[in-house]
């Protein structure tokens, strides 16, 4: 359900209809900015949005993205510590 993909707004194409050009890895498509425009339309240029069926449905929150990635990195570090502890235990066993 509901394929959505991040893209960056690169220009405003139609002010009356709230349309802008979005770039997804070099593929460009005109999308509606109606769902996400709060202030001046031009402020949308440069923003990363989540695109679904030709509509920019959300502005992607960079801080939240970083937080999620940090949580994932944290898991990685915790895992490494666990592995090191396991190896330490094993080394101790061998010493004994």
């Amino acid at each position, binding site marked *: 359900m509901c394929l959505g993909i991040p893209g960056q707004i690169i220009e405003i194409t139609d002010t009356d209809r709230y349309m802008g050009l979005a770039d997804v890895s070099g593929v460009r498509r005109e999308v509606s900015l*109606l769902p996400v425009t709060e202030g001046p339309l031009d402020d949308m240029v440069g923003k990363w949005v989540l695109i*679904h*069926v030709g509509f920019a*449905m959300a502005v992607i929150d960079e801080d939240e993205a970083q937080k999620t990635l940090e949580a994932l990195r944290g898991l990685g570090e915790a895992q490494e510590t666990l592995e090191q502890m396991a190896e330490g235990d094993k080394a101790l066993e061998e010493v004994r």
Partner: protein
Amino acid sequence: MRYVEEFRDPKAAKSVLAAIAQVADEIGATRDKPVHIMEICGGHTHAIFRYGLDKLVHDGIEFIHGPGCPVCVLPRSRVDECIELAELPEVIFTTFGDAMRVPGTKKSLMQAKADGADIRMVYSPLDALELARRNPDREVVFFGLGFETTTPSTAFSIQQAAREGLTNFSVFCNHITVPPPIKALLDDPHMVLDGFVGPGHVSMVIGVHPYDFIAQDYGKPLVVSGFEPLDLLQSVLMVLEQIRDGRAEIENQYARVVPEHGNPASLAAISEVYEPRPTFEWRGLGEIDESGLRIRDAYAAFDAEAKFGIGYGAAKGRAVVEEPEGAACGLVMTGRCKPTDCPKFGTGCTPEMPLGALMVSSEGACAAYYQYGGARATEAAE
């Protein structure tokens, strides 16, 4: 690709998988006594199989594939109505590609197109609107299909058509909503679910609170999740941690896209253009109260049901059609049996000759099992 690649990092996946295994062990989940987690959304089902996540997670976790695939829950009678509309000589029938192969009682839209109906696949309802502008002498009907994620796009398109005074554009509204069927599933005494992974793009529109009842009234955890593999794995971990800690909360793993209260402009457009139908039929689930939307009278000029007298609101009444004989679509849909338990799976029902919609849509549980060969499908075959 920004916001995509980072969330597909195999190295990070390893540590999430290890953490999942650890928590699964802590709560005593085993292959014989698994934790049942329903991923509601077909997009999640697709991602699970595309990345082979079902084979990577701890043995004690069983994914139950939920009803969040709009074409999978579309009753055959609705497909018949689409074809009836599409075969009207003045109509250009526009649809997302997803609906093209879904079987009706006699044929699919693909077959109707071959029979001469003017059916066009579009990427966006905006493209259907453009077709209407360019073909003033034809009636352009857009097949409004999908959950809350997609509903705003047709609402905005109808509003735009109204502003422009377009008289040859209408929407055949089959939009449905996620929370009511989840409630119906939870009310089913046969259901054994321990937690949910919630559809992130639906919550992008409606926020996280419409799911509060799941935690409050049913005591089940739900984590709203993104669609990349790391998103999904992290969400599974969060569900497991809630189970371990004896919590039942609605958590948001996908905060980069999902605001707590959703998207105000989209919600406003939905409530201006649409209202709930008293009841709506779901394939495999039956009638569910207030689970479908219709176009409000103020926008009747853009309502294909009102304009052509075809569909749910039609005077001739509702067509009730039986499901394919011998197939277990309904049981699979509700997670009570696996695709491979269906007597027709892989024999009478294949992606080439689908009996039910679950075999048609690439996010349908049956097609996913068949094409990506889920671990459990392989086991069943052995």
